[in-house]
């Protein structure tokens, strides 16, 4: 299988980025969108071809999908054996991911043709999109843990650029900054994790690294487990830190605070980056190193599971109270990623045990479709209403039928109503959780119900309820905006029927799964209950929501204010870091360090001033000093130095 052409998948967007970034403003003001979309289309086709080749033609050897390094180029060598090799790693997960990334990216490209039309920095926008696509594809194809870190940072900066796209809005600038810094903080953990792992594994390449840290009796594994710091083994440290990196990108509690703010970016961007692709990078990262987690450090997986489960529930609760449509979607994203995370966490390696792994990636796959769809729909709505606020929406079904249907399908999918895509993946996750950890299972169940509730709260508030008078006018939008909705709706409906377990699993061996109907009853019932509750409260204008909010006012307030996590951070950064570290550091520098330098100068000048009396201008005094000098020297010579 000739795989060199796969390199085109990340490289074409890079080329597009350079082209548009350097010359877009002058030469491609109008055509930038077409260029970007075409490139996106081409790589989508390539990605699909690759997927076809891999999954159906050549990927499977001896009944298992193989992990192969398609190409590798030594980029930076640190020491013999430890080097950053820019390469392409093909396995079922990465192939699946490039499909997701290219498809969603293509949708967003197409959608933006309409959505961003007339924007002053149209070409810049497409340049940034291309940059992001490049980085994300590079990330998923990474064959080297440092390579993934590099692209990790690059997606971070693309995200920064895109969130801050409306740079004259201070809130957008602040949100972009916040997103970058929070994820940077997490990346620090990732970096240290890499340092730890690579030091003991003596390699940075994924296959070798995994092999060395998993195979029984390898000296590297022995070394890393033998060392510990603060009573915790080095391997645990390393893997936990790597996970923290992933948690930052994937907005796991408590590193999630940037995600809702990131909605300041253009909505298609939110669909691409903050719903379908970049935010799941954390899940992907854990999946990449999954054998190590599962085989050598199951305790870290536990940690991951609890973090994921908590985040899922936590985000779901907040989502119920938010009034900004995009923020609700953002919290829902966080909640769904929590699902994926804990699915990873409860999973084992290989065979039946590996169900969680498969389910997690499956959910990632389906979620990409329906969440992207939801965001694009939100984009349509915002495009129409010029507001993000739920209060300003209502009864929109009349003016935007396509959006309405798409949104409904997506809601059903995310709520896990059969036979929509979400049902299948969620089903697998819950089964895995049921088998793995009951506490998590119940949390997941509860979350499933809440998910259905807040999604339909959104749905009813937007499309039913009381129509908003000013919400009409220029129709639903152009064909380019509708086309992605069609495609993604198809995905949201049908993606669940992909035989995912046959294709993607932790060890590459296809997995046989069956849907246990008994298992599905509880979540589906809960979901329907959630929908009904939403129907009761939000289908028509009434005061039930306020009443409910009033009865649990304390909790409501907490949830509405996102449990004050932002404020805690603000306190930590502003009060503690800024005022207790930064300010004293600056003060210390100015007054103590610099002060001592200046003080030395003043001291010299002072002494100089002080001894000026020595030069009294009186020749007799000079004589006295002269003689005193002689006496002094004579005494020294005679009695001290003798």
């Amino acid at each position, binding site marked *: 299988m000739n795989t060199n052409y796969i390199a085109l998948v990340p490289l074409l967007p890079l080329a597009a980025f350079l082209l548009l970034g350097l010359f877009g403003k002058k030469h491609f003001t109008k055509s930038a969108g077409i260029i970007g979309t075409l490139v996106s289309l081409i790589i989508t086709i390539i990605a699909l071809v690759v997927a076809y080749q891999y999954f159906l033609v050549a990927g499977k050897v001896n009944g298992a999908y193989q992990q192969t390094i398609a190409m590798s180029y030594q980029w930076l060598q640190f020491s013999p054996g430890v080097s950053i090799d820019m390469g392409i790693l093909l396995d079922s997960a990465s192939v699946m991911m490039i499909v997701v990334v290219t498809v969603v990216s293509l949708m967003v490209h197409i959608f933006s043709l309409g959505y961003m039309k007339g924007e002053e920095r149209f070409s810049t926008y497409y340049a940034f999109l291309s940059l992001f696509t490049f980085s994300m594809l590079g990330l998923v194809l990474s064959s080297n843990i440092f390579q993934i870190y590099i692209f990790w940072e690059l997606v971070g900066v693309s995200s920064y650029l895109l969130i801050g796209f409306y740079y004259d809005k201070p809130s957008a600038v602040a949100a972009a900054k916040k997103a970058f810094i929070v994820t940077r903080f997490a990346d620090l953990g990732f970096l240290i994790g890499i340092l730890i792992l690579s030091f003991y594994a003596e390699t940075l390449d994924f296959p070798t690294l995994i092999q060395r840290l998993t195979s029984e009796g390898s000296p590297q594994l022995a070394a890393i487990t033998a060392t510990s710091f603060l009573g915790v083994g080095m391997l645990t440290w390393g893997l936990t830190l790597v996970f923290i990196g992933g948690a930052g990108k994937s907005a796991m509690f408590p590193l999630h605070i940037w995600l809702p703010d990131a909605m300041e970016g253009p909505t298609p961007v939110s669909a691409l980056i903050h719903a379908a692709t970049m935010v799941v990078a954390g899940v992907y990262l854990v999946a990449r190193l999954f054998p190590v987690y599962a085989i050598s450090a199951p305790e870290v997986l536990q940690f991951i599971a609890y973090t994921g489960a908590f985040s899922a529930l936590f985000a779901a609760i907040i989502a119920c109270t938010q009034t900004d449509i995009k923020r609700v979607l953002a919290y829902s994203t966080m909640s769904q990623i929590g699902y994926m995370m804990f699915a990873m966490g409860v999973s084992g390696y290989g065979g039946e045990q590996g169900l969680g792994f498969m389910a997690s990636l499956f959910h990632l796959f389906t979620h990409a479709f329906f969440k992207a769809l939801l965001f694009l729909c939100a984009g349509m709505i915002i495009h129409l209403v010029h507001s993000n606020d739920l209060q300003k929406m209502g009864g929109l079904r009349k003016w935007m039928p396509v959006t309405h249907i798409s949104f409904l399908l997506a809601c059903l999918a995310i709520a896990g109503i059969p036979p929509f895509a979400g049902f299948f993946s969620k089903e697998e996750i819950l089964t895995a959780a049921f088998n793995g950890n009951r506490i998590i299972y119940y949390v997941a169940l509860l979350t499933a119900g809440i998910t259905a509730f807040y999604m339909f709260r959104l749905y009813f508030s937007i499309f039913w309820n009381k129509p908003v008078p000013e919400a009409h006018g220029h129709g639903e939008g152009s064909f380019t905006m509708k086309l992605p909705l069609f495609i993604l709706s198809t995905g949201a409906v049908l993606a669940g029927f992909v035989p995912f377990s046959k294709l993607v699993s932790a060890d590459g061996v296809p997995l046989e799964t069956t849907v246990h109907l008994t298992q599905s009853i509880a979540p589906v019932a809960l979901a329907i209950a959630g929908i009904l509750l939403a129907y009761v409260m939000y289908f028509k204008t009434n005061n039930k929501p306020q009443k409910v909010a009033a009865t649990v006012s304390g909790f409501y307030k907490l949830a509405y204010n996102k449990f004050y996590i932002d404020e805690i951070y603000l306190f930590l950064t502003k009060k503690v870091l800024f005022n207790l570290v930064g300010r004293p550091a600056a003060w210390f520098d100015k007054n103590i360090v610099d002060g001592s330098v200046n003080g030395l100068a003043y001291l010299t000048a002072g002494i100089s001033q002080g001894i000026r009396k020595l030069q009294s201008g009186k020749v007799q005094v000079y004589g006295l000093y*002269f003689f005193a000098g002689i006496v002094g020297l004579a005494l020294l010579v005679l009695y001290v*130095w003798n």
Partner: protein
Amino acid sequence: MVQEIFSLMKPELLLVLLLFILLFWKLAENEGTTATQLAVINILLIINFVAGLFLNSEGSVFSEVYKASTLATAEKNILNFGVCLISMQSYGWLKTHKHVLEFYMLLVSTLIGFFLMISGQNLLVFYLGLELATIPLAALCNFDLEKRKSSEAAMKLIMSSAFSSALLLFGISLVYGTTGTINFTELSLALSGSPLQLFAFVLLIAGFAFKISAVPFHLWTADVYEGSPVAVTSYLSVISKGAIIFVFASVLYTVFKPLASTWYNLLFLISVLTMIIGNLFAIRQNNMKRFLAFSSIAQVGFILIGISGSSDMGTASVVFFVLVYVFSNLGAFGVVSAVSSITGKENMSDYSGFYKTNPLLSWVLVLSLFSLAGIPPTAGFFGKFFLLMAGAGKGNYVLIVIAALNMIVSLFYYLKVVRTIFMEKNEAPMEKLAIDSWPKFAMAICVTGIITLGFVSWVYEYISGISIGM
């Protein structure tokens, strides 16, 4: 015998000849205009300098009382050269002066005094040379006859130097008393280091230290430098100081060799004090001459480090540094002298905005100051570096560290002048000065020297080749 005297004592005899030419010229009916006088004298001095470069031989006459060595000849040539430069630079000041011939007569006689000191091989000749160099110099300090400061300076110089030479003589008498000889060679064998001898030795050191203005015997320096005419100040700070330093080094290395450990300690202490005090006073000065006086005090501290090295490297570095110092200090004094003779301004603050009106003069001054501060690529860098190396040869790094720190302080005040010239805004800067061609020529020589002396390594190598250590 006579022939030997003529060939060995050529430098002194040439100067005596010059002195008598001047004397008879003065006695002649027609003295000519000052301009002619100055031109002729400058040419004569140049001839004297050039003549000093050739046909030199080594040997001694008057039963070893007078000794001519290659090193001594080289030192005399340096001094001759310095006098040429000073003479050319003082053109602007002298051309309105009424006593040009007398000025040069006195100047030449002091120079003879220095030469005798360099070549003299006993304490009497040494003492006479010293007085011959000092007494007329005091008269020279008073040559701005109508200036109060000039008289004050002359008075301070003559009083202090009389006092110092009395102490020096007391020391010499004790040396004589304890050894029975005044001859250098015999002295070096006879010195035993008894307490009385050490006391006498300290007195002698003080006498030297007074002349080279080392702390705490330096107090006269600033006042005298400030009050004297610039030409005399530059003579004092360059020629007088340089000559005494030559003598000091050779006396320490040869005569007082038996007391080496004592004088090393003394030199260490004096050198540190000199650098520190000189620098501390220089920081605050506003009068350019006074400023240069203190800076030259600090320079002496550095020279003493070189002397303390007590190797042939020490001698070489000292001689080389003095040569560099001639160029750099005279470069600075050249500008100060030009400014002072034309405008009468001597304060540092008068120089603010100087660069705007007199860029070339500014560069001359700044280059000279950089050289004094020891900043490459000027010659001063090499000079200082070699001095420190010579000092470090003894392994006393404390001294070198102190010296290095002092270099920073000294850099501060040199840069202060640079700052005044280049950076300070001045509504009414000094006008564009018209400099006569003699001083211009001298400055050009100084600048050339400052720039090339370090790169033309044969100069140092030559000096190093003829230098003798302890």
